[in-house]
């Protein structure tokens, strides 16, 4: 009993030391009382997105104002839609690459009439990974878990780099094609000019010959 108690205490110590290095941040948005506030992100295919949102009450006398949220995929599919809530969370895996949009608006239940503050915690990819289950499954904790997280971060960096490289290659191809097209179209435009003026001359010559002027 004493041995396991010691281990537990050590674990607690490591966790506290872990907590002293804060890593979680989220942005706050202020939603106007009329109109929608949208945030979007361009996400690749097959990426896990995890988000949660909480309405922050301005003062503690009123009840929290409620908001509505709608999350749409780039093709218009509705991924998450909630009305009259003060907090919630959603998670999905992207099935198409493109712009994912999350829109907030205030319902008619806002007594204060001012802007509503919403705390949005939006995580994608490696940031959305469930380290707790990894720690539990592989029975690692403390420093080893931290190093695992760093390893995950490095892998994510590597993947991002490869993605950027492929995008740059794509863009280079488009640029080269546009460059070739500009050259080709300019020469063609000269050709069109000459052809049109030749046609003009030929038609007018025929016309004047018909009119017996030349």
């Amino acid at each position: 009993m004493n041995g396991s108690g010691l281990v537990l205490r050590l674990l607690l110590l490591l966790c506290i030391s872990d907590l002293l290095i804060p890593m979680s941040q989220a942005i706050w948005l202020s939603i106007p009382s009329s109109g929608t506030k949208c945030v979007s992100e361009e996400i690749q295919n097959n990426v896990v997105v995890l988000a949660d949102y909480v309405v922050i009450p301005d003062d503690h006398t009123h009840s929290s104002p409620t908001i509505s949220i709608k999350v749409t995929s780039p093709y218009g599919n509705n991924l998450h839609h909630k009305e009259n809530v003060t907090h919630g969370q959603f998670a999905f895996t992207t099935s198409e690459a493109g712009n994912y949009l999350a829109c907030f608006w205030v319902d008619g239940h806002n007594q204060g009439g001012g802007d509503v503050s919403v705390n949005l915690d939006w995580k994608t990819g490696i940031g959305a990974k469930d380290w707790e289950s990894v720690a539990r499954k592989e029975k690692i904790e403390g420093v080893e878990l931290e190093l695992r997280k760093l390893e995950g971060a490095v892998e994510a960096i590597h993947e991002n780099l490869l993605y950027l490289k492929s995008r740059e290659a794509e863009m280079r191809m488009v640029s080269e094609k546009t460059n070739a097209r500009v050259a080709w179209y300019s020469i063609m435009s000269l050709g069109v000019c000459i052809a049109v003026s030749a046609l003009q001359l030929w038609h007018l010559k025929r016309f004047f010959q018909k009119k017996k002027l030349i």
Partner: protein
Amino acid sequence: MERRHTHRCATGFIFIALFFSFIHRISALSVTVNEVECVYEYVIYEGDTVSGNFVVVDHDIFWGSDHPGIDFTVTSPAGNTVHTLKGTSGDKFEFKAPRSGMYKFCFHNSYATPETVSFYIHVGHIPNEHNLAKDEHLDPINVKIAELREALESVTAEQKYLKARDARHRHTNESTRKRVIFYTLGEYLLLALASGLQVVYIRRLFSKSVGYNRV
């Protein structure tokens, strides 16, 4: 019985502690700036380094070189401006937070058309020697790990900046491609039209009703 209960409480607390020690990274979100758009971020510790970047993704309005660009201001919780950037289409920023609290990051758009700005903000904390001395539970290795994590974060931030800039360049390229095709076709049509109009005009000059002796 009591000891088991305490152990269970401790285990529960540990799992909750582990839960809160995720690496929460905010991704590069985009927001549409009509006139002013503000985002808030809470800085927990004084002296933390707040770093980030933003890129204007819309391309259509950067027609001329006299575009004013957008302004970026960071206001501390005390109300004074900590950092400003004026008239840019995208930049990186980094500053040391003078105090803890809620910081306001604002984008100002002085142009009439709304613009989409993709931004990324990161607050990095490294426990320093002072904290180490105060709290003997803090291991020096945690400081090193925190430094490593911050270094990796800066690489990730740079990648997000590059990705946003790449998106912007892609838009510009697409726009150029469409313009080349559209303008060239328009040019050919106009050329043919002008020449046709010329022919019609000359024909009219020589038509019988006018009298060809006059020409």
